[in-house]
């Protein structure tokens, strides 16, 4: 079985984001970039499945400009077998991403797709669901445990107030939540080996997908600055402030 994992290049989670002066987006010049943390978890899960002997190949795909090959290399260093770089301008919208992945599933004969539940830059949480619909495949979103048995995959999902377990037939789409696993470090010997692993480059057009989007970002604004804390003299004042000002009790 082949596993397809999609990874997105996003601004590093610890970078303090600044909005561009013209409000057209976030300032990314010189910002540190990294693999989207949820995607990293998906890569780790795919590699663990392969290490258990339940998959033959882990293919990593990233959609974006040339720089996203860095995140493909990282995934290869973690243990993925080969990469596909879908060269496109940044900002490909979820539906187009899902279509590209659908085309790759058909082309490669994929048995299982592992995705992050959302990317920390646009926070859409849409691709896995759209892909499942496009491919008419079962989906296990927000996974915190994944187990392959007898040609099926059991997915434990994080849901409000608890967990839900679903059994999916293959091919299936799974999106990872934070607690699914703790990704490993990339070892230096593996980083060196990853340099020799193949990365194919294709375009959305090669896959028959039009990435033009009907979505236009009008403005990006920083959240309002938090006002400073206040000191209260005693418990009574605290309670009265919680009631009248914060209105939480």
């Amino acid at each position: 079985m082949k596993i397809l994992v999609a990874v997105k290049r996003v601004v590093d989670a610890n970078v303090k984001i600044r909005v561009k002066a013209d409000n057209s987006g976030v300032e990314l010049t010189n910002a540190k970039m990294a693999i989207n943390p949820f995607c990293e978890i998906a890569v780790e899960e795919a590699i663990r499945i392969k290490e258990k002997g339940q998959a033959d190949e882990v293919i990593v795909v990233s959609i974006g400009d040339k720089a996203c090959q860095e995140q493909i290399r990282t995934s290869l260093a973690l243990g993925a077998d080969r990469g596909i770089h879908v060269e496109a301008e940044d900002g490909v919208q979820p539906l187009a991403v899902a279509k590209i992945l659908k085309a790759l599933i058909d082309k490669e004969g994929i048995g299982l797709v592992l995705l992050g539940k959302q990317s920390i830059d646009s926070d859409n949480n849409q691709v896995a669901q759209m892909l499942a619909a496009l491919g008419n495949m079962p989906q296990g979103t927000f996974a915190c445990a994944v187990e392959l048995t007898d040609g099926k995959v059991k997915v434990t999902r994080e849901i409000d107030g608890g967990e839900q377990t679903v059994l999916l037939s293959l091919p299936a789409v799974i999106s990872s939540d934070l607690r699914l696993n703790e990704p490993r470090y990339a070892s230096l010997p593996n980083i060196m080996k990853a340099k020799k692993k193949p990365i194919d480059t294709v375009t959305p057009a090669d896959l028959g997908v039009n990435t033009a989007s009907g979505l236009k970002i009008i403005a990006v604004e920083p959240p309002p600055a938090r006002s400073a804390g206040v000191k209260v003299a005693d418990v009574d004042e605290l309670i009265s402030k919680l009631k009248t000002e914060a209105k939480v009790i």
Partner: protein
Amino acid sequence: MNPVHADILERLSELLGADRVKTDPDSLANYGKDWTRANDPRPTAIVFPGSIDEVQAIVRLANEYACALVPSGGRTGLSGGAVACQGEIVVSFERMNKILDFDPVDRQVICQPGVVTEVLQNFAEEQQLFYPVDFASSGSSQIGGNVATNAGGIKVIRYGLTRDWVVGMKVVTGSGELLDLNHGLIKNATGYDLRHLFIGSEGTLGLIVELTLKLTTPPKDPMVLVLAVDAMESAMDVLRSFQSRLPLTAFEFFSEKALRHVLAEKGLQRPCETVGEFYALIEFENVSEHTLDQAMEAFEYCMEQGWALDGTLSQSSAQARDLWRLREDISETIARFTPYKNDISVRVSRVPAFLREVDAIVSSRYPDFEIIWFGHIGDGNVHLNILKPDALDKAVFFKQCAEVSVEIFECVERFGGSVSAEHGVGLLKKPFLHYSRSAGEIACMKALKQVFDPRGVMNPGKIFD
């Protein structure tokens, strides 16, 4: 020093207000100690000045009543410098914790001594600048304490010590005089630079009441490598291999034993599969597209030579931070074993031979104690920690350690090294000062103290008697 006169407490209350003179047992126990546990705290009172005027008035009262003062910062010191164990009055700078001014042209910040190191680091970051002196205790230590100990830390190899960042300072000397030293000048060739005497003086000459510190450009995309190395000595070969190829911002090392404690306590991941006897943590700036290739080249070379066994490279700043924790959480993790700490240094070139000798001493003299090595080895500085076995009494343990220390310090002396690389002398290293400083030097230090603190009110009994 006389026992504290009851009158002075009353006068201090008049001066500061009763709520800023504390004598309750909790405050005395808390503010009377630093991070060390060898001496039990026993101060008479804790005072909390809010201004330079108040500090001056406190020092004048101390002179009038011949009463000893102990300056107290964040109390993270590792030499007992801020410990008050003989009825002193502790002067806490907790309330003097404001950043007063920042000049973007000078890239200088003026602040009160009680500003917590991390607060200054964050302030610099907000100005898109960098205050580079950093270590595991920066969330609690104060700038005043850092200057008083000339703190070093994890970025010395690139950015130097606290001393290198102090461009101005106001001090109230032991006689109560306010000196305004160097006021932010880069160049100032007008005689003795008294600022440098107060840096590292551990509160024995006067109280630091205001600081002007310079800031710098932040490093570009710092990346972290952790390598498993075959033996302690190889760490220096690894250092040379990386230093000649990359702009290093840190080079630290720690032992597998240290790592094991941190992993167990903090639930972190091992850096790599292969277990080394030691690990090197290397941080470098990712300045160009070739930097990573050079890092890989250095690693391959170290592998070929057999120095490095395995390793990892951070792929995100979250990973970089987690890898740093393997080194930075050591002190905190082993604190519960009441460790006996040695903070020794020699010139970088002499580290391998020095380590070989020290290792031989500790392995033969401490056969039953657990020994934890770590430190800023890129600066020639190692922290040698001896853990107290649970069953052993604290006093007995420290006595045994002090005996072995003599052998270690004789070795330090032979190598022309220092018995305290960055933690200061305070109380704990006082008996060993002569291994690093000649009788002539110590006499000069005592004479200098006379000049600034003629009545001996400033932190008496610290550094020397």
